[in-house]
């Protein structure tokens, strides 16, 4: 797929900007705090309806304005698609696809696909479990758009259940309604099971691809194993049987009932999942060197690109935010070999000198200055 134009209105520090893309690679060049990452963020938003930087639309809309727009034209093999996302400081979004306002936002997902790779991803291995869940969820949203709905319902049930536990724990006089809690348990387990199964499925697909890339980048020296470590584990691990997982879920809730009552919060469920990375059988988190961790993350990103491509039958976009300078020449070249001119790539940088000259081939260079995009040389 090819992103032809991006239109930003009152988005972050852009007042009104149309960007035309006309090469497989676009280098966005500019000093710090000019709007380079903001532009990539706009693309990420269209692809996933999320931003890895914020969770409130108020921060995305240009300061002092009630609303902003991110719109794009994308050329797909099946035709040209027009995407528009209206953001409001108040939080309500409107999504339009080919001029039609969508009733369900999840129908917006899948029109544009992108893999984001930023410096933050380099922290994926060493960061907290929440970072790894976010990474996995963002991938899943693009593989199975309905996951966005399942996950938001799960979070909603979780909030409700926590509110109930908090109330019952705060106020001893109100006798806890066991039946009400049981109904929330059932909802949590049913939705949680759907989340767990999809996460397991995504890891099962991405893990072998990433292992292959990792072996390739490390010249066959390193074996990467990625394992999903769900908080709720069915008796026969690796099972995909929803019934078994749900049973295990409810049993664990029973086990932790007293702790949950005491702490007034939900202790069981996929909001406590994690993903384990190990290289040559030792945990990458503790023992991986800087270089190994970089190889790992690069391998993950390449695996994501390939996985999304194999699912949607078109190469997704790649968004490289400030990360290229962090990779040495060998790793840069592996990346370049993979993307060639097939994956449209947007790259941000503060100077052209910070990466290898090969990247300039089949590239367009745009300058970003205080929320405006100018063709370099103009």
């Amino acid at each position, binding site marked *: 797929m090819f992103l032809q134009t991006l239109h930003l209105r009152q988005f972050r520090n852009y007042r009104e900007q149309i960007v035309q893309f006309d090469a497989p690679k676009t280098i966005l060049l500019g000093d710090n705090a000019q709007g380079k990452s903001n532009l990539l963020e706009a693309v990420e938003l269209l692809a996933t309806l999320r931003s890895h930087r914020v969770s409130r639309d108020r921060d995305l809309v240009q300061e002092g304005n009630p609303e902003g727009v991110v719109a794009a034209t994308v050329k797909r093999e099946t035709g040209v698609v027009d995407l528009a996302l209206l953001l409001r400081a108040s939080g309500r979004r409107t999504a339009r696809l080919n001029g039609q306002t969508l009733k369900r936002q999840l129908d917006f997902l899948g029109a544009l696909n992108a893999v984001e790779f930023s410096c933050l991803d380099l922290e994926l291995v060493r960061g907290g479990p929440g970072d790894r869940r976010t990474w996995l969820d963002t991938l899943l949203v693009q593989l199975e758009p309905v996951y966005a709905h399942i996950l938001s319902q799960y979070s909603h049930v979780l909030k409700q259940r926590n509110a109930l536990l908090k109330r019952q724990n705060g106020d001893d006089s109100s006798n806890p309604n066991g039946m009400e809690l049981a*109904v929330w348990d059932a909802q949590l387990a049913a939705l949680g099971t759907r989340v767990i199964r999809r996460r397991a499925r995504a890891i099962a697909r991405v893990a072998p691809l990433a292992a292959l890339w990792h072996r390739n980048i490390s010249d066959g020296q390193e074996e990467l194993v990625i394992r999903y470590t769900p908080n709720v584990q069915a008796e026969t691990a690796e099972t995909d049987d929803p019934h078994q997982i749900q049973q295990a879920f409810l049993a664990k809730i029973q086990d932790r009932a007293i702790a949950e009552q005491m702490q007034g919060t939900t202790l069981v469920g996929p909001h406590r999942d994690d993903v384990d990375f190990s290289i040559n059988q030792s945990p990458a988190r503790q023992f991986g060197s800087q270089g190994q961790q970089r190889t790992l993350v690069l391998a993950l990103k390449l695996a994501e690109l390939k996985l999304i491509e194999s699912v949607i039958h078109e190469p997704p976009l790649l968004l490289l935010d400030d990360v290229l300078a962090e990779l040495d020449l060998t790793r840069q070249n592996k990346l370049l070999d993979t993307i060639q001119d097939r994956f449209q790539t947007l790259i941000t940088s503060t100077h052209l000198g910070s990466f290898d000259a090969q990247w300039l081939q089949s590239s367009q260079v745009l300058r970003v200055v205080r929320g405006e995009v100018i063709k370099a040389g103009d």
Partner: protein
Amino acid sequence: MIEQFQRLPGIGPKSAQRLALYVLKRPETEIQALAQALLEAKQQVGVCRVCFHLSAEDVCDICRSPSRDRATICVVADPRDVIAIEKTREYQGKYHVLGGLISPMDGIGPEQLYISPLVKRASEAEVTEVILAISPSVEGETTTLYVGQLLKPFTKVTRIAFGLPMGGDLEYADEVTLARALEGRRELD
């Protein structure tokens, strides 16, 4: 006045302004009549003692109507849902309005809803079916499960299968969708 109007459902700043200008232009007697009508409605319309639908009388028209089937009760969250289902003219039974949905975040538990009067009604011998017509949101689903469990010992419990947009309200479902949903109801498991 504009601010007051804006608090009404479905009224944005522009409509509020339009309404305010309209009020200012009309003769005083007319506005007085409007204000009077609003107040009277508020003072006179309470809820039906049996089904908790809005009613000016102690017991509402639907509950009193001899032509409606006493054997089925359709359970909804809100009086608006009764109005939406009545528009389909498909349904001949009685109603029960819960007065909301279970939502711990908003401090609404089963005790805050008209659930126990429903259980009492459903346990009467003449009732053979209770239809749960509650939107499939997280809170709607929880309320459906909760009420369903309480009622199952007494009567057959079904729920209507909405083809509603995710997170959609009953109110927004068109009449055709609702009528079809009523026909396609299935037993709660």
